[in-house]
């Protein structure tokens, strides 16, 4: 990582950018090496600074054409240091190399916005440079309240950072260089400070329980609400979830604790419904699920749909009915595994159907879908959706499902797979029906509408062959949909 930097260095004739730092050491006896001073050359890096009133923002520079964000390896200067043009201020790690970033202006490093070890997107402010000492306070205030007092003249700044969490590290981590830290004092151990930075805990607000009232790593963990278990493990899995319905919210779910918020991000707490989704999704991780896909020709179904549509029948009802009829022949797919030791066969076939409603996701249930006829089912579904929009669903109307249906076909999604909801044995993900060239058994080509259906199931109770058989039945029903109307 460090390697790319100094090959650059050899090519850069930058006589004016040379600083010599003398190591006048504390100990006169120290020298490990005879010659004690060294020379540091700086390379030029892109335009790291931009004018903005008298307080300039130091931006994350683009160090390579592919760099989208950079990590602050170290701040060479600390807050309060005098900077002169051409001096290195900060070391940034890009996707390719470590580079020193130098300032193009004289001034005082007033505030560090992005502390060491954290990342910022290219163009985001990482520090503030004040022209005179008088402006330090202003700059600090600016760093602290970030977006709040967005300076009018520079409204065109690309990366505004309205992030309240940012001031915390600036205020807590290294004691500010202002001489004002006399009486107020929080002693925290090195690891405690590291954890605090990592978990964005304001050390000054933590009560130390260590010796001499010192803040220990344990105190920080307690303050950050970290318990010995590892909630982190869940985060990546949730982030990758293909929510049963294309609701924008779920993927953002519980990824918060592990990754530090980037400057410029906003934190919005979950609504109750979103919290419930999040909880259910996490629970699903304890179930060993697997997936089986099946292509199904829908020409017959489409023809039927055209016929029954005027009578108020929806595609959802058709699919739910077909699934229910198939489930009746394959009870194991309608079963569930409650305790990890047994099958629970359900007497009723209740088809839950995932629906996106503003910012959330709910699964109204079509109870006894195998027994009701298409028209009743369609009517029932209409009622349920209205109730769901009005948030009037009764618990048994959304949590009594034995099998779930999720259809993203109307959005043009051709295939996806769904996460198994707790308490159910299987969930079906239906993609869009699309014209496809198929060869029949005599070798004749024709164009048929086909859709991809993907079922996720709990492998403790539903095995591959079960699911395959169920899907075969389901496809037969879809391909010969007359039975649906009976």
């Amino acid at each position, binding site marked *: 990582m*460090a390697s790319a930097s100094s090959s650059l260095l050899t090519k850069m004739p930058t006589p004016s950018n040379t600083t010599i730092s003398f190591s006048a050491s*504390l100990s006169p006896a120290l020298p490990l090496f*005879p010659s004690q001073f*060294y020379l540091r050359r700086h390379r030029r890096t892109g335009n790291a600074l931009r004018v903005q009133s008298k307080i300039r923002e130091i931006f994350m520079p683009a160090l390579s054409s592919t760099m989208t964000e950079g990590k602050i390896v170290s701040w060479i200067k600390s807050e309060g240091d005098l900077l002169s043009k051409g001096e290195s201020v900060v070391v940034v790690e890009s996707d390719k190399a470590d580079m020193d970033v130098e300032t193009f202006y004289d001034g005082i490093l007033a505030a560090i916005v992005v502390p060491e070890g954290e990342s910022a997107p290219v163009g985001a402010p990482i520090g503030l440079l004040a022209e005179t000492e008088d402006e330090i306070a202003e700059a600090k205030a600016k760093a602290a309240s970030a977006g709040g007092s967005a300076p009018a003249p520079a409204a065109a700044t690309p990366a505004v950072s309205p992030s309240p969490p940012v001031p915390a590290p600036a205020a807590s981590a290294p*004691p500010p260089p202002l001489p004002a830290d006399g009486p107020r004092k929080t002693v925290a151990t*090195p690891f405690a400070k590291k954890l605090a930075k990592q978990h964005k805990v304001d050390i000054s607000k933590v009560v130390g329980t260590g010796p001499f009232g010192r803040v220990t790593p344990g105190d920080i963990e307690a303050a950050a609400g970290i318990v010995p278990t590892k909630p982190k493990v869940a985060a990546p899995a949730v982030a990758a979830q293909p929510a049963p319905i294309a609701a924008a919210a779920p993927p953002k779910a519980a990824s918060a604790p592990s990754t530090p918020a980037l400057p410029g991000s906003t934190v919005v707490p979950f609504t109750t419904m979103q919290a419930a989704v999040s909880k259910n999704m996490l629970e699903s991780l304890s179930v060993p699920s697997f997936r089986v896909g099946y292509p199904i020709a829908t020409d017959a179904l489409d023809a039927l749909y055209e016929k029954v549509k005027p009578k108020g029948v929806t595609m959802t009802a058709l699919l739910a009915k077909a699934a229910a009829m198939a489930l009746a022949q394959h009870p194991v797919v309608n079963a569930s595994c409650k305790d990890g030791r047994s099958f629970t066969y359900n007497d009723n076939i209740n088809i839950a159907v995932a629906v996106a409603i503003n910012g959330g996701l709910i699964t109204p249930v079509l109870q006894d879908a195998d027994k009701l006829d298409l028209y009743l089912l369609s009517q029932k579904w209409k009622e349920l959706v209205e109730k769901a929009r009005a948030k009037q669903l009764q618990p048994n109307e959304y949590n009594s499902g034995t099998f779930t249906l999720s259809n993203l076909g109307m959005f043009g999604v051709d295939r996806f797979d769904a996460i198994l909801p707790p308490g159910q044995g299987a969930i079906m993900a239906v993609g869009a029906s699309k014209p496809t060239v198929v060869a029949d058994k005599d070798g004749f080509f024709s164009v048929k509408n086909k859709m991809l259906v993907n079922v996720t199931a709990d492998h403790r109770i539903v095995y591959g062959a079960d699911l395959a058989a169920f899907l075969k039945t389901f496809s037969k029903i879809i391909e010969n949909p007359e039975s649906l109307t009976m």
Partner: protein
Amino acid sequence: MQASLSLSVSNPAAIPRSGHGFESSLPFPSKPVNLRFCGLRREALGFSSTSSSISAYRSNRNAARSKKVWASLGSDNGSSSSAPKSFDYDLIIIGAGVGGHGAALHAVEKGLKTAIVEGDVVGGTCVNRGCVPSKALLAVSGRMRELQNEHHLKALGLQVSAASYDRQGVADHANNLATKIRSNLTNSMKALGVDILTGFGTVLGPQKVKVGKDTVVTAKDIIIATGSVPFVPKGIEVDGKTVITSDHALKLESVPDWIAIVGSGYIGLEFSDVYTALGSEVTFVEALDQLMPGFDPEIGKLAQRVLINPRKIDYHTGVFATKITPAKDGKPVTIELIDAKTKEPKETLEVDAALIATGRAPFTNGLGLENINVATQRGFIPVDDRMRVIDSNGDRVPHLFCIGDANGKMMLAHAASAQGISVVEQLTGRDHVLNHLSIPAACFTHPEISMVGLTEPQAREKAELEGFEVAVAKTSFKANTKALAENEGEGLAKLIYRPDNGEILGVHIFGLHAADLIHEASNAIALGTRIQDLKLAVHAHPTLSEVLDELFKSAKVSF
């Protein structure tokens, strides 16, 4: 290869520091000249090696080359020399550390009657309070690190339940190792017939040493090798329990929860490795603006990212510790910091313990240097490039040499030993100037850091002064099969060289077993081997040494 060569050899100024420079100024190979001369004329060198003694060199080289002849001459000489009086010894060495030991062994090999004076224990700092016991602690910390690194173990397919340690057991290991090495050292000297004189050595006058209270011994030549002690800046109160130096720390009497280490040189760095592996948290206090001064900046930066940032370590740079008060009356250790530049008070740290690792101070008090008109410089004994002691008038003190930490040229055990050997070479008729740039140094952290020669900034500065070009080549441990097999791909080797002639200016390694890998480079520098020749050398596969192989091969020499 004729006698004429002695002309330039005898002129110290003409001897460049590195071997190949030598080559360019003299019409024969880079090997230091193998000059010997008859016992009768021997003292001529001792007094001076200026051109007045040139005739002394003009002896029959063939005769002198025979070791047997020389040895017999030498031992005869010891007792019945042509000098005005007889001496008890050919050589007395004051200080039985690694430097004195190395000199003594070599002196015996060269046929000198040798005595070594020791006021404390044989082995000196290195064996008793330095390199040796610290390696024992670092061996423990290295294993602890491995056992605690779940991720690493898992990648190797290993499962280990929680690792823990017994502090006393670790301390005993360090102590036992020191004892063992000390007895090895003592035995090796005794077996060879070196007289070990116990007592504090004082120089009474030229060629005269007092040992202890009233024993006076004479010797034709004297080597001072009294070493150094931990340097404690003023204002720091060392109580040996909560404010300690490396002397105390190596006994590992406690493992504090939080220890401040004042000084982030290699001593501080090694201790931070030990303490963090044993569960302590560490705060570095460094007077300079960045940690690890003295290391090549690039290596330092990488080392910081591996050895400091991910560990339970924080640091304050650019600050002096002006006052350190040991823990007492229920109060923690306090460390008052001031800004190194503005001298303004910065803050006060409260920690459980403080280790003072601010370097080492020469141990030269009470040596009787005033008897021979030698004034120390900040405690160091001034010497020329042949370790000959210089008095306060700037003249050489005859028959008196100083090696090791006491002269401050390069405060490393093996440097002291090399200097001692170099002195003995001179005493026995072979002029020798040690090339300090060929002396490797190592820091035994996990992974290790090692270096030889110049750092990149030093090399560039030299290049600018002398008008040559400098190039840098680098290889990563990530590309090395053996390192990857060990799952230790983190590391970098860096070569600083002259592309015009293939001379190695410096090599710096950070990575697995770096300390063992450096010698290929240091030997090359010492022998003046060029990169174009090293490129052809063969390395066993798969070994870590291929990191250097790659490094040399990646250098672009226009030769």
